[in-house]
């Protein structure tokens, strides 16, 4: 319990620092955001008025305070391109991003973990080399290029999957329960819709999952190989523990703990990757929203998205650390 509280305290400190950092960067960098937003044709009056509205003429501390206050109240400012409250926009697009992220994560784990174990158990044989080659490529692959290639091949050439979007424009989404179209369609027992939705999510999920899957495979392989040299493995083997129990229950559990340490990094890849994948596949998520904001120099939106993403990332990392502590009794009970 104390472990959890400490982690939460650390998280709070990091979040505070994060907000300061982003604020400082946004205000300190040269370039006038208002000019960016209004474009080169703006008059001095328009610039002055917008500056006042955005509170840019106030002293730094006041501006920071407004930002923090807004954060707690759920007000992230108004987008300079859509003129809608950013918080509302983010909430609209969040479920789609989460859905894509979950499918991608599931794919990465379901493919990466068994492959990682397999390459470790069958070390230096054919299967190992193929697996490692795959993993190696996955890490070196530029996400945007892979996305385009996949899109070109499977959507435009072979026409198996639709190239863009989350659902056909003339198809109605399922009644909203969880926010995830996939789950909601299953809940509504509309399997046709489910398959339809699946066809949209498959390609972006595969592209998103490629790098993380590769990382999981490599790390799990290394962790498993580490475990194989450990004393308890020798003892268990010598005393007649069945091999598949030893590998998949005892060794994997330990190896997994080590792998969890990079889950934080994986989240980072997922978030960064989402920006690119959502843009290429026009997936209506926060990533695409963020990229639009960046390309249009929507100052408020950029700040808001960066802040939200950063905090979510930090929170997720803390969650993982807590989970890690729960999984590994050594940390919980204050062992080595």
């Amino acid at each position, binding site marked *: 319990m104390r472990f959890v509280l400490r982690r939460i305290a650390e998280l709070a400190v990091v979040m505070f620092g994060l907000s300061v950092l982003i604020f400082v960067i946004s205000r300190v960098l040269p370039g006038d955001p208002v000019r960016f937003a209004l474009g080169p044709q703006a008059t001095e009056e328009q610039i002055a008025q917008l500056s006042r509205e955005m509170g840019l003429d106030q002293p730094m501390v006041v501006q920071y305070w407004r930002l923090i206050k807004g954060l707690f109240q759920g007000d992230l400012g108004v987008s300079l391109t859509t003129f809608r409250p950013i918080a509302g926009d983010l909430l609209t697009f969040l479920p789609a991003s989460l859905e894509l992220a979950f499918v991608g994560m599931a794919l990465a784990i379901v493919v990466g973990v068994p492959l990682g174990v397999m390459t470790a158990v069958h070390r230096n044989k054919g299967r190992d080399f193929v697996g490692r080659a795959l993993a*190696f490529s996955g890490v070196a692959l530029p996400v945007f290029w892979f996305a385009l290639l996949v899109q070109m091949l499977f959507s435009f050439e072979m026409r198996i999957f639709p190239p863009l979007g989350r659902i056909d424009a003339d198809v109605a989404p399922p009644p909203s329960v969880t926010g995830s179209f996939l789950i909601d369609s299953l809940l509504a027992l509309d399997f046709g819709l489910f398959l339809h939705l699946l066809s949209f999510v498959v390609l972006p999920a595969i592209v998103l999952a490629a790098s993380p899957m590769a990382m999981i495979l490599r790390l799990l392989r290394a962790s498993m190989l580490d475990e194989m040299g450990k004393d308890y493995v020798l003892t268990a083997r010598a005393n007649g523990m069945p091999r598949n129990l030893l590998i998949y229950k005892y060794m994997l559990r330990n190896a997994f703990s080590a792998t969890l340490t990079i889950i934080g990094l994986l989240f980072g890849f997922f978030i960064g990757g989402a920006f690119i994948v959502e843009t290429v596949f026009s997936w209506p998520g926060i990533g695409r929203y963020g990229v639009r904001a960046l390309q249009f120099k929507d100052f408020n939106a950029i700040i808001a998205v960066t802040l939200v993403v950063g905090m979510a990332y930090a929170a997720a990392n803390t969650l993982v650390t807590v989970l890690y502590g729960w999984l590994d009794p050594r940390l919980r009970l204050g062992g080595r």
Partner: protein
Amino acid sequence: MADDANVTIASGLEDGPVSKAVPTWRIALETLRKSPLSMIGLFIVVAVIFIAIFAPWIAPFPDDAGATVNFAERLQPPSWKHWFGTDIVGRDVLSRVMVGARISLMIAFFVIVLAVLIGVPIGIIAAYWGGWLGNVLMRINEVFLAIPSLVFVLAVAALLGPSLPVVIAAISLAWWTWFARLAYGEALHLKEEQFVEAARVSGASGLRIAFGEILPNLTSVLIVKITLDIGYVILLGAALGFLGLGVQPPDPEWGIMVAEGRDQLPNAWWLTTFPGLAIFLTVIGFNLLGDGLNDLLGARQ
């Protein structure tokens, strides 16, 4: 060895015949040579660096790297004249890819240099002197690490207005944290080693120890990380270019070229394929080399 008082057999032979010792550089070369993958990596890296340096002289159509137009030859598929085909305004893709290597490597080089120069000293200082200063430094480090690199760099680049120096500055700002964390972790371990104690006891000043004793021991870890990171920085720079927030056209940066080719899909497939392939192969080269160095330097210890 506990010597008897009545040794009659020549001392030194008590251990029996021993296999001959081999000089370290020999071992290094043998180890690297034995790993064909590392050799491939080395070859790719050397080739890319060579191309980057000599691109303006070895590219078939060096002018195409800029803003020239040649509408007569636009959108030609790969041929003997244009190995990688031509783009929408008729520029030779191969030449652009070759010159693009310069941009990517330059970004990587400057970013790594900056990140190391900032991050490593901070990490060492935080680890060695610890205490209040160390805590603060590492907290700051964590804050920077709290934003995924791509998002952070995108935001900075967008806010500053994208260009080559901005890309370098933005990525460096994100990347120093990794080196600081690495240096911190390693220095923490090394701090407890005996040779540090010995140096301290013999009166060496803190700075001398930190940078004279601890730093040299970080070099092998740093070399491996630098080699691997070059690949990742190239990927990041290209992603920025792809989204339009990095190096700007008409510069033949690989990411931009992939983005420009996107509009021509699926017909002019060569526009996206070759620049992307260049990125892919370059990163693979650095990763292979980095892995090889990792095995090599790890084995030596």
